[in-house]
C-alpha cells in the first residue's frame, strides 16, 4: 500500500496538496512546542530548557518505530522510502557549520519560519541569512566540490553499519533517549531560568 505517491496510489498534484497539509501540521507542532522562540531552542545548550532534545528524540523514535511496524504489517514498503545518502565528509563538515549557525542564530531553518510566522523579527533576519548562505554555497561550489562528494558510502543504515538488526538498534536508541531525558529533567532543575 504505502508509500502512496511512489506507488502511484495518489497523483503528483494530490501529493503536493498533502505536502501543504503535512506542512501545516509540522508548523503547528513546532510552534506549539515552543520552537518559534530562539531562547527556548538555545536553552538545550545551557541546560535551562531542554525542549529541543525531548521533542527531537521523541519524534525521531516515534517515526522510526512507526515505519518499522508499518513495514512489519506490510502497510508500507520501506524499499520505496527515501533514505538519505551518506557522504561522510560533508555530513560532518556541513553539520559543524550548521551547529555554529545554530548557536549563533538560535534557529534552524524549519523553526525560523515558525518564528517568522508569529512575528519574530530575529527569525526573519535569520531567514534572510539562510538565502545568502544557500546562494553563497552555490556561488562558490567549485571550491567545495571535492569535499561535497568525498567519502560516498551509498545509503547505509546505521543498524547495518553496527551489524545489528533494525529492531535492536531501535530498542537501544530508546534506552539512550530515556537516559538523556533523565539528564535533561535534572538539568532544567539545576539551571533554572524563569524570565525568558
Amino acid at each position: 500500500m504505502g508509500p502512496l505517491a511512489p506507488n502511484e496510489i495518489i497523483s503528483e498534484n494530490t501529493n503536493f496538496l498533502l505536502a501543504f497539509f503535512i506542512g501545516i501540521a509540522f508548523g503547528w507542532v513546532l510552534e506549539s512546542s515552543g520552537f518559534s522562540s530562539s531562547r527556548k531552542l538555545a536553552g538545550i545548550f545551557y541546560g535551562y530548557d531542554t525542549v529541543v532534545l525531548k521533542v527531537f528524540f521523541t519524534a525521531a523514535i516515534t517515526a522510526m518505530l512507526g515505519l518499522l511496524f508499518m513495514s512489519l504489517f506490510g502497510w508500507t514498503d520501506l524499499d520505496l522510502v527515501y533514505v538519505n545518502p551518506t557522504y561522510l565528509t560533508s555530513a560532518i563538515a556541513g553539520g559543524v557549520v550548521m551547529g555554529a549557525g545554530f548557536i549563533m542564530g538560535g534557529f534552524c531553518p524549519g523553526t525560523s519560519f515558525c518564528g517568522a510566522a508569529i512575528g519574530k523579527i530575529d527569525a526573519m533576519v535569520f531567514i534572510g541569512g539562510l538565502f545568502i548562505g544557500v546562494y553563497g554555497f552555490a556561488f562558490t561550489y567549485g571550491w567545495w566540490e571535492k569535499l561535497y562528494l568525498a567519502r560516498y558510502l551509498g545509503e547505509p543504515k546505521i543498524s547495518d553499519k553496527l551489524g545489528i538488526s533494525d529492531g535492536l538498534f531501535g530498542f537501544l536508541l530508546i534506552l539512550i533517549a530515556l537516559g538523556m531525558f533523565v539528564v535533561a529533567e535534572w538539568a532544567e532543575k539545576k539551571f533554572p531560568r524563569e524570565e525568558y
Partner: protein
Amino acid sequence: MSNNTSTDKSRRYLNPYLGGVLLGLVLLAANFVSGRGLGASGAIKSVVATTIGTVDKEAIGTMPFMAEYAESHSGNPMKSWLVFQMLGVIVGGFLSGTFAGRLKLKVEHSPKITSRRRLIFALAGGVLFGFGSQLGRGCTSGSALSGMAVLSLGGFVTMMAIFGTAFALAYFFRKNWI
C-alpha cells in the same frame, strides 16, 4: 503541582513529549504519503534556484550546483514537495501562534544584549546554517530528524555534528543567551 496562572509562559506550550510524539506522527505521515521525510532547507534552495533563473537565465549555467538541481527539477523548481510543505509550515505556525496568543512583532533577545546585537548574530547564524545545509545535504529537519527516522547513517552523523558543535561553541556565545 500548583495551579499556574495564564501568564506562566511554559504552561501554554505543549508538553514536550506529547509534542515529540505528534511531530513523529507528522513525519511518519510524510513517509507514508510521499515516501520521504520532512525538510526545510530544500525549499530555500528551490527559491534561490528560481530567483537566479529569473534574474539571469545564463547565471544558472555558470553555477554547476544549481544547474544540476534545475535539471533534476525540470519545469518549475517552485513546484516541489518541500516548497508546498514549507508554505504549510508558515500557515501552521501562524495558526498555532494565533490561537495561543503569541502573535507579536518583536526581536526576541536576552535582556543582557541589544536588539542590534541579536539581529547581527541572527543574520550570521542564518548565513552559516544556509551554507551548511547545502554542504550537508539537508538541515536539522531533512537530514538529521528525517534521516534518523529511516536509520540513515548520514542522518545520525549530521545530527551529532550539529548538536556537538553547538554544544562545543556554547561557552563562547553564552552572553547572547544566558
